[in-house]
């Protein structure tokens, strides 16, 4: 009986560790996913937003086709509100757009430092008619 109780206790501990670890990793991963979807799937709100009146950031002219003018506007949004405008207010954001070779075409947000959790998601987009890479990093 003691052995059985020991096994149950051990398994319960393993289960709790798994659940806690999964949820911690999953929070940042979900946030990078949400922010990326907002950026590449829609125009944002209002649809013709500028950095002064944006409520929800989106960069897409069409699905996965980014609007260069909106990318320039994105750079003017303050780092403190960028997460909120991308639907992930609990995280800080760093966005980096590169060409297919990896050469930087623009970046904005806060470069990660002293973070406890971080997730970086790569999405391919069409930018100025060429396949490009959009990296969205969320961290806190």
């Amino acid at each position, binding site marked *: *009986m003691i052995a*059985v*109780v020991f*096994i*149950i206790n051990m*398994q*319960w501990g*393993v*289960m709790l560790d*798994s*659940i806690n670890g*999964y949820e911690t990793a999953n929070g940042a*991963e979900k946030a990078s*996913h949400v922010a990326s979807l907002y950026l*590449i799937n829609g125009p944002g709100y209002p649809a013709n937003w500028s950095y002064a009146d944006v409520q929800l950031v989106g960069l897409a002219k*069409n*699905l*996965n*086709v980014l609007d260069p003018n909106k990318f320039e506007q994105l750079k003017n949004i303050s780092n403190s509100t960028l997460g909120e405008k991308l639907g992930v207010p609990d995280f800080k954001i760093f966005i980096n757009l590169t060409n*297919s*070779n*990896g050469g930087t075409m623009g970046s904005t947000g806060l470069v990660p430092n002293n973070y406890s959790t971080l997730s970086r*998601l*790569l*999405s*391919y*987009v*069409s930018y100025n*008619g*060429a*396949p*490009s*890479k959009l990296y969205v990093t969320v961290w806190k």
Partner: protein
Amino acid sequence: MRKAFIFTLDALFAVSVLAVFLTVVSFELNVPKQAYWLPELGDTFMTSLDKSGVLYGTYLQSPTDAQNTLTYYLNTLPANTNAKITIKIYTQGTGDTFNGPTTIEATKGTISQYQETHVKRVFCNVTNKKFGIAELVLSYA
């Protein structure tokens, strides 16, 4: 004496069932989850090639040049992925018949059957009476 013995067996049985249940649950939680980013990476990769005219452009290139173009873009994928892209181009003949396909393939590394993902796109060029089917297979390296 006999009742007590049966009660002990019942309790042992119940505890055993619970132990098996917890073992199965903990095993399931420890099974590696498939990274959601692999299908999404493949999807955005193919959409960007489509929307940027790269897939469409394979109509206009020789098979060798088209293969080189596709190889170039495959090599921009992350180092921890392997990929293979296959494009089949059909040309309309007389009536409703289609000739082909002309097949163009490009690869990056060797596809692993472990956690592979497939993405397809169909694209057409009405003027030249051609259509193509592009399929990407993406896996961990």
